[in-house]
């Protein structure tokens, strides 16, 4: 947390009083969880940087830890933020930026309280890195839109009540300008969610098939044709994983590997030793770089190193998990469990080496492929020329697919 300014200190004091009064009126040990969270939202103590009436007080985001710590210390229930991450991190900021008053009042409170889970319907089988190529159609019909298409890589779709959706409303326009942004009711007829089994045997994600799903025009966010711009707001708010900030040495995969090397002398081989040490150095370099990035951010000098962090993390994780299997030899030939399951969290360290090797393959694909990240660094940081584009000014329907 950055140093607090004098004004912050006053506000912090004021906040602490508010929380004390709130807790006096709503004893967390007796009040029902949902009632407690609703009351916290209504008191403006949910997300401080949101406006009054929508769970906040238009305060600085930096003060949020004050509230979280105070409620945690009082043993108050939280809104299980991991379960509603897409709602909190992606849907809510977009609703706040583009939603009408009615939309904000309808959606934000149950979203924050965790009563309604949200998911994101952006990626498609034919639109991964090139999101703006997406083909899911929304056709107007009276006061509704009829949505048809296929979405993929949707986590939480099987539990979600609502989805944020980008769909094509004008196939005759160039790809970026023919899109619109909607909120889709996941319980509506025509929505089918199927688990998408992945390389590890389990299914963290879903495919979502949309067949003539009715979406009221009142559930559109932003203007018709403005979907790309609205989606940018969503994606900019996607939580930037900076890779641990100030994690101790030998955190994560390198720790698993170092532990194996130390405790099991029988795996030691000269060639593997130098590879281990090369990766140990790479892990340490990545760790120190993440620390330097945090220090830059705290000192108000945000650097472009953030784009590099994910790329470095993905590469390192893949190399480490590959080496681990080689170290283990015969043991590396076994896998813990191919059973199709729906895991709540991705647990790298708790599963078998084979799982780690396979799951790490996703690290260079999910949330921006390594190739796209390198393009971003080359173009935005180094100022190299962009890719030659043949798709920008052509009607979407005329693009090769």
């Amino acid at each position, binding site marked *: 947390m950055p140093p607090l300014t004098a004004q912050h200190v006053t506000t912090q004091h004021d906040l602490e009083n508010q929380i004390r009064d709130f807790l006096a009126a709503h004893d967390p040990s007796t009040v029902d969880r949902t009632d407690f969270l609703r009351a916290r939202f209504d008191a403006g103590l949910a997300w401080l940087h949101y406006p009054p009436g929508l769970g906040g007080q238009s305060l600085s985001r930096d003060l949020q830890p004050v509230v979280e710590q105070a409620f945690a210390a009082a043993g108050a229930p939280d809104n299980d933020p991991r379960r509603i991450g897409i709602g909190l991190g992606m849907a809510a900021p977009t609703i706040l930026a583009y939603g009408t008053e009615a939309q904000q009042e309808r959606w934000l409170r149950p979203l924050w309280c965790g009563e309604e889970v949200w998911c994101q319907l952006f990626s498609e089988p034919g639109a991964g890195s090139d999101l703006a190529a997406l083909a899911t159609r929304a056709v107007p019909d009276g006061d509704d839109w009829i949505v048809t298409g296929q979405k993929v890589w949707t986590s939480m779709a099987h539990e979600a009540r609502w989805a944020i959706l980008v769909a094509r409303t004008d196939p005759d326009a160039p790809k970026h300008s023919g899109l619109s942004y909607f909120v889709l009711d996941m319980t509506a007829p025509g929505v089918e969610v199927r688990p998408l089994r992945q390389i590890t045997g389990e299914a963290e994600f879903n495919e979502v098939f949309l067949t003539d799903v009715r979406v009221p025009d009142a559930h559109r966010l932003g203007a018709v044709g403005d979907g790309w711009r609205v989606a940018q707001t969503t994606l900019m708010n996607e939580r930037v994983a900076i890779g641990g900030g100030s994690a101790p040495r030998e955190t994560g995969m390198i720790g698993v590997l170092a532990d194996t090397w130390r405790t099991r002398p029988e795996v030691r081989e000269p060639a593997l030793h130098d590879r281990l040490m090369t990766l140990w150095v790479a892990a340490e370099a990545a760790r*120190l770089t993440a620390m*330097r990035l945090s220090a830059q951010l705290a000192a108000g000098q945000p650097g472009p190193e953030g784009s590099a962090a994910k790329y*470095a993390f993905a590469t390192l994780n893949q190399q480490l998990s590959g080496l681990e299997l080689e170290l283990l030899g015969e043991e590396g030939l076994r896998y813990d469990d191919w059973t199709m399951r729906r895991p709540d969290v991705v647990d790298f360290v708790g599963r078998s080496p084979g799982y780690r090797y396979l799951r790490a393959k996703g690290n260079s694909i999910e949330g921006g492929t390594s190739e796209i990240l390198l393009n971003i660094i080359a173009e935005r940081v*180094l100022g190299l*020329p962009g890719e030659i584009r043949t798709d920008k000014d052509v009607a979407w329907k005329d693009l090769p697919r």
Partner: protein
Amino acid sequence: MSDELLYSEPEEELRAAVADLLSARAPWSAVLARTESAEPYDADLWKALGTGIGAAGLLVPEELGGAGASLREAAVVAEELGKAVAPVPFLGSLTATALLLALPGCDAQLRRIATGEQTAAVAVPFSTLPGNGRRNTVSVTPWPPKDGVTDARLTGRVTGVADALPADVLIVPADGSLYAVQAVDVTRKAVTSLDMTRVLCDIELEDTPGELLAIGYSALDEALTSAAAVLASEQLGLAERCLATTVEYVKTRHQFGRAVGSYQGLKHRLAQLWVQIAQARAVARHAVSATGDERAIAVAVAQAHCSAVAVLAAEECVQMHGGIGFTWEHPAHLYLKRAKSASLALGTAARHRARLAELVGLPAS
């Protein structure tokens, strides 16, 4: 601790002063021209840097005429020198200064270094891994050294010493002790060096008078560790300059009707290099800030990482410049030669990894 990974304002001011000096006095064309001259080191530039800006006395306490600064400031100077592949004996002088600071009774010598009256160097092969400087090639009479008797005679040979050619005083490890020797009393033979901007020499001592400075090599190990830490920053600076030069070139060089920098085959490699340089900055900063047990680990990490990054940057610089990068008239070769030599200096990356394995409890067998 994470603020130590950034640069302070005084450090940035020092950087600017060094950068201004180098851009005025050491453009690469001048550096290239000097490589085949009789004086491979630039004495005037060293004077301007050493005493004009105060780089020679950076580590020397203020009461002895120095700046009382730390390795962090020295590292910033080294970054800029790496960018220019400047032919000055900064690293060798810094190593000698760090060593003298750890020895008793060397105030007068340190004062002479800070004023620029003398330049010192440590007579060990440039390839020496810190902690491994015990290979004995010089013998001493009388032996063993006696209390009160500080005059000795040294005989032997030390090969491949960096920054000793322009030095006035040499600190010579011999038979387990450290001696100060006047450079005029030894024979220094310049080596035709892979790095033409940091020319090595072979040193012959024959019944050469030496002044006993200290018994034991522990201070030498520490000084070489400091040198290795600062060398990582020099490698960082070199890598940054190679990347910047290459990025500028691929934006302007056109083939097949496009800037070659618009091809992903080059863009991705340059982006990967940028990622590694960003990491090099973090590890190099940490290496010159760490103390206690952490220092040896931090320096080994920095050397293992930055050596490879500098070499990669210089190799990519040559390759992405195409034909012109292979010519003598283009500076790319000066950077390549400095980078590859620096990767062998003060222990190769592989040796630093082996050392690191001992330090962090990951034994080879």
